[in-house]
């Protein structure tokens, strides 16, 4: 999500000779206006979500603007089931992120660094896990749990979330491993470091940005997941499951508030990350 690599614009690209006037109108006016329009379209539900978290509505039906209030921020945890669902989501996201990050990093190192028998098959499984529709992941896991009569709940959700985040962490870390400069590790070994020390002091810190990006991705995937979770959740409710259920009768304003806070938290982390990276570079 936050790992988009943009190549620096070529320094002062020479102005194309005799650019037709009509072309300039396209690139100076029409396309930028269109892009901003689309950005507005993409942001519209977010703006509405934020605004109607401040709506002074009565009861559950949050339909029209009835005045400004911060009541919903004060009564954020008033709806017991919603609060429980949000807490479940956070706990599940933290646990599955930790497991997926550790195991996924190991996969990324194995695939990025070594050639071994069966690597092609491993690559294929990773590729399939990323490209398989979530529906199929959920349905097949449910088939497994039903067949072995494993009771669905907290554990099955964590297992499922790790299963779909693993591959994403693995490819993120692998990309970083492939970009490593081998001379750094060679230098450490030349200075007498044993393999484990080299790994801990040199390799791991160099891989850290990839691992952090993978972990953030795993967390985001987990906390947002509805499809897979809906199949394997049993009686346990997570935040997306609760909200989906609530859409039938009307979403209470607390959901807007929670959505707003999660949004601000995520944007804060992303912007902070970008600023930090810029400062390190500059």
């Amino acid at each position, binding site marked *: 999500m936050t790992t988009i690599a943009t190549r620096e614009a070529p320094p002062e690209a020479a102005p194309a000779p005799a650019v037709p006037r009509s072309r300039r109108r396209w690139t100076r006016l029409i396309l930028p206006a269109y892009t901003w329009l689309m950005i507005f379209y993409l942001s519209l539900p*977010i703006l509405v979500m934020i605004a109607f978290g401040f709506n002074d509505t009565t009861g559950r039906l949050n339909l029209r603007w009835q005045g400004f209030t911060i009541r919903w921020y004060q009564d954020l945890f008033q709806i017991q089931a919603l609060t429980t669902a949000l807490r479940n989501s956070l706990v599940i996201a933290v646990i599955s992120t930790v497991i997926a990050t550790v195991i996924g990093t190991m996969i990324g190192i194995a695939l990025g660094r070594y050639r071994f028998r069966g690597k092609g098959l491993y690559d294929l499984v990773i590729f399939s896990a990323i490209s398989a529709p979530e529906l199929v992941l959920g349905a097949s896991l449910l088939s497994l749990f039903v067949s072995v009569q494993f009771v669905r709940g907290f554990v099955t959700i964590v297992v499922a979330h790790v299963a779909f985040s693993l591959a994403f962490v693995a490819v993120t870390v692998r990309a970083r491993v492939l970009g490593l400069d081998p001379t750094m590790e060679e230098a450490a070994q030349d200075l007498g470091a044993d393999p484990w020390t080299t790994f801990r002091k040199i390799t791991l810190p160099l891989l850290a940005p990839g691992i952090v990006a993978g972990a953030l991705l795993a967390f985001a995937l987990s906390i947002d997941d509805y499809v897979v979770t809906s199949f394997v959740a049993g009686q346990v409710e997570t935040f997306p499951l609760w909200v989906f259920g609530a859409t039938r009768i009307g979403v209470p304003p607390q959901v807007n508030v929670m959505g707003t806070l*999660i949004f601000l938290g995520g944007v804060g982390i992303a912007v902070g990350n970008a600023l930090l990276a810029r400062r390190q570079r500059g």
Partner: protein
Amino acid sequence: MSARRGRLTPYLVGLPGGLWLGIFFVVPILVMLSLSLQSGNAEEGFRFTWAWSNYADAWEFYHTQFVRSIIYGLIVTVLCLVLAYPMAYWIAFYGGSRKSTYLFLILLPFFVSFVIRTASWKFILNDEGFVFGPLKDAGLLPGDFHILATSTAVIGGLTYNYLPFMVLPLYVALERIDPSLVEAAYDLFASRTQAFRRVVFPLSLPGVFAGVLITFVPVASDFVNSGILGGTQTTMIGNVIQTEYLTNNQYPLASAMSFMLMAALLIGIFVYARALGTEQVMEVSQA
């Protein structure tokens, strides 16, 4: 000793992940395949009987939803491509130093839960909501006007939710194009249209392929949008599979449907990947 350990290292490092993906990704799909050929019921249990009839039944009962999902998938993919291309093109060639900012703004929806985003559209499009309500009160819209529960709402919701997925690979492909190639085309007296059609567009095709793939697969199997924004006339195959699994406990039938969907989509993916090279699809999809 050390050389031997060296040879074992990749297996040891890759083992936990391999086991996890084996047990919770590969095995479940095989179990689902087996379940799709079983017969019985939820109370007495299911037995493996080579019940190919599950597949015939699935097609007979639900081919409407199956075909509808594919059609929605195609419409949404084309809409996303048409809406995303001009944006990706402009940002890639004229974004200058603010490219990252534009991309960040396009990715903003990802910071809000998928379900909440879709619920937010339901709220915006509500028959009596803050958009249509006042218009109806003012007599500008007929009282029974509605968008929710129509295919317009579902296709609109899907297009909204998957648009950023299309922008990214297009942007990555367009950004790689060397601007001097385009200038060369102008120097050789190409018109604006010709330069685009003969130089820019062909070079962006890997992005188009990847974007189509990344959009079509999840859209065709989506059931959140039609669950929240749709009605009985917009049911997609994902909704049917979910209901058959969770409400009706018709595991063999539901497994057969999931398998048919997966087979249809995977064949599509591998034909694509073959035509284009897995590495490239992976590379673009990671961006």
